[in-house]
């Protein structure tokens, strides 16, 4: 879905959000309450510039609007694959974004991620995946790598990977796989305003994705292994 279509459905035609160089930003009113919205558009690669632009708004929200909820709109092809970004410390800029979002959560801001188009690896890990919870539209695509590329890198037959992906969600692209593994909490189907209202009303709290993955059957070991470490003699 285009970002403009999405925010019009969520916040009406006078939403006031704007896009500049793939960076989305706005202060909207939802159910009579102000909400900070940030994100990226056009499958933007996340480099140092876009990581810092998002972090800036998160830090400003913490400083100027204590407790105001933050909605992260995610559409990215992943991290910027450029030598100059590596030289500049793209991993440090990404960590800074993730830590800014994490600080917002700890300071009492509800932070909800929504994958409205696509989300890939490095562009996703310090946005939706570090929010209180990350949701997605049903038509969204979430992945690290497509199966043909994965077949090349792992030197495994593509046909075998395709067949296994039917039963095992851990490697194949797909928003459903991320729901099954607990990485995505819920899909927003039908009334998007109702879905956002429900997301904002969920209690914050500890990271329950590993338990969700076990309950939903998509990531059966993570919670159990972590618990075994806690219980080990």
């Amino acid at each position, binding site marked *: 879905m285009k970002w403009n279509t999405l925010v019009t459905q969520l916040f009406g035609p006078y939403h006031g959000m704007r896009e500049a160089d793939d960076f989305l930003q706005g202060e909207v009113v939802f159910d009579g309450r102000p909400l900070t919205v940030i994100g990226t558009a056009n499958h933007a690669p996340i480099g140092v510039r876009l990581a810092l632009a998002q972090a800036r708004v998160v*830090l400003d929200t913490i400083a100027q609007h204590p407790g105001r909820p933050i909605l992260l709109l995610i559409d990215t092809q992943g991290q910027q694959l450029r030598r100059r970004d590596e030289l500049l410390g793209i991993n440090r800029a990404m960590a800074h974004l993730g830590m*800014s979002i*994490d600080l917002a959560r700890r300071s009492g801001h509800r932070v909800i991620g929504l994958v409205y188009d696509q989300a890939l690896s490095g562009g996703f*890990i310090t946005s939706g995946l570090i929010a209180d919870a990350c949701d997605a539209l049903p038509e969204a695509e979430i992945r690290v790598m497509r199966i043909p590329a*994965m077949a090349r890198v792992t030197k495994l037959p593509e046909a075998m990977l395709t067949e296994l992906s039917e039963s095992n969600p851990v490697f194949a692209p797909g928003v459903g796989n991320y729901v099954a593994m607990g990485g995505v909490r819920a899909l927003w189907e039908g009334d998007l305003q109702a879905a956002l209202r429900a997301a904002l009303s969920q209690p914050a709290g500890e990271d329950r994705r590993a338990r969700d993955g076990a309950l939903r059957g998509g990531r059966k070991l993570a919670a159990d292994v972590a618990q075994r*470490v806690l219980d*080990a003699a």
Partner: protein
Amino acid sequence: MNLSYAECTARERLAHLLDAGSFHEWLPPAERVTSPHLAQLGVPGAFDDGVAIGRATLAGRTVFVAAQEGVFMGGGVGEVHGAKLVGLLQRALRDRPAAVLLLAESGGVRLHEANAGLIAVSEVMRAVLDVRAAGIPVITLIGGANGCFGGMGIVARCTDHIVMSDSGRLAMSGPEVIEASFGVEEFDSRDRALVWRTTGGKHRWLTGDCDALVEDDVQAFRAAAIAALGAAKAVTPALLEAEHALLSARLREMPPPSDDSDDATALWQRLGIADAQRIPDMDVAAVHALRAAAEVPR
């Protein structure tokens, strides 16, 4: 006697870095906690899934420690590997050791179980920040041959303190991945000098991306880890505002691409570092002196 950190296995690093005989492992190889996903793909697994975790003492203080094994799948994080790291951090939150040491050596997410690995790395990030918020320092050591890349490169920067050797590397995407995407003109992954100027320990030290630069020697890492035991840095709005200012200034100061000057050398010059052209040939002690002179902000 100098023992190369880069040439050690994960378990050799633990044996020599921590107080002798003090490492007590949780979920050791004898328990055979392996990746079912690799088995399903017919790929050989490891009985520890590529990471050893446990408690130990360091200079007499109780620490929790994780060591990633770069020889196994490049240290890639899969479901079990990631859950062992999360469990260790959750246990640190409960038992409150003096510090958590992360001997990181990883290409990032293990592609054979990529979705699970990606979620796991984000769980590790959150668990690291939980431990930091409790005032327990998390200290990352980077000096393995595989470097610290991908999601683990982000995790490292979420920790309180990073120690690197000059042969260590810390970044996001590996040079091979960038070359495959944008060509050899963008990043020649076989140009070792360029790779180290872009991602290596000296560059990370000069820019303040790591907190200590040491020789490739296990005892040097041990000394730096002991020195960092009190290094807890609370994540506050002030800390993140300072971080934001530093990264924004660096982005502004990054010189435009030029045929006459290498990007890394030009950036070092902009940061006020003397003798920038000679840095690749300098030893660790000489590089230490340079940063002290330039007063690079951390």
